[in-house]
């Protein structure tokens, strides 16, 4: 209910925020998956298993995507500070 104590967020808004955050994570996963597929799966398809090379590529691709995510995030933060 909505009388769960002082200082707590409206439960409907809590649920909406949790839903929004999950959508963001899903969206990031979808984009990352599409791009790493494009950049790492080069042979379509000589085999049904991932090759060693493809597996290593995928690991590094995911790691690099998260680094780009941080770089962009930091840049946007710096820009908004500069504008205040």
């Amino acid at each position, binding site marked *: *209910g909505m009388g*769960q104590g002082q200082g707590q967020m409206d*439960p409907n808004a*809590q*649920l909406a925020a*949790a*839903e929004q955050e*999950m959508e963001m*994570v*899903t969206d990031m*996963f*979808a984009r*990352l*998956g599409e791009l*790493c*597929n494009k950049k*790492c*799966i080069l042979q*379509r*398809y*000589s*085999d*049904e*298993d*991932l090759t060693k090379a*493809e*597996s290593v590529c*995928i*690991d590094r691709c*995911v*790691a690099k995507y*998260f680094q780009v*995510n*941080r770089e962009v995030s930091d840049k946007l933060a710096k820009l908004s500070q500069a504008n205040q």
Partner: protein
Amino acid sequence: MYNNYGPSYQEQRLQQMMEQKQLKDFMRMYSNLVSRCFDDCVSDFTSNKLGDKELTCVTRCTLKNMKMNERVGQRFAEENAKLMEEQAKLGN
């Protein structure tokens, strides 16, 4: 349907939302496999039935892409956990 008392009500709603999301994610993964494997394996329209080469391709495509998704998912979960740890340290 809902137990309308305090915190477990929220938990039930959250649980239901996550179940719906899991179903949606599965359906999306399935649709992605179909469109990707069609795109990668089918370019010959001299026939209206899939040939042996195409069927083999679709099988390999389905399995390979599922394994890729699985590996991406594992690495993603690890990286995401790292990211949330960093944000917690920064007080986000």
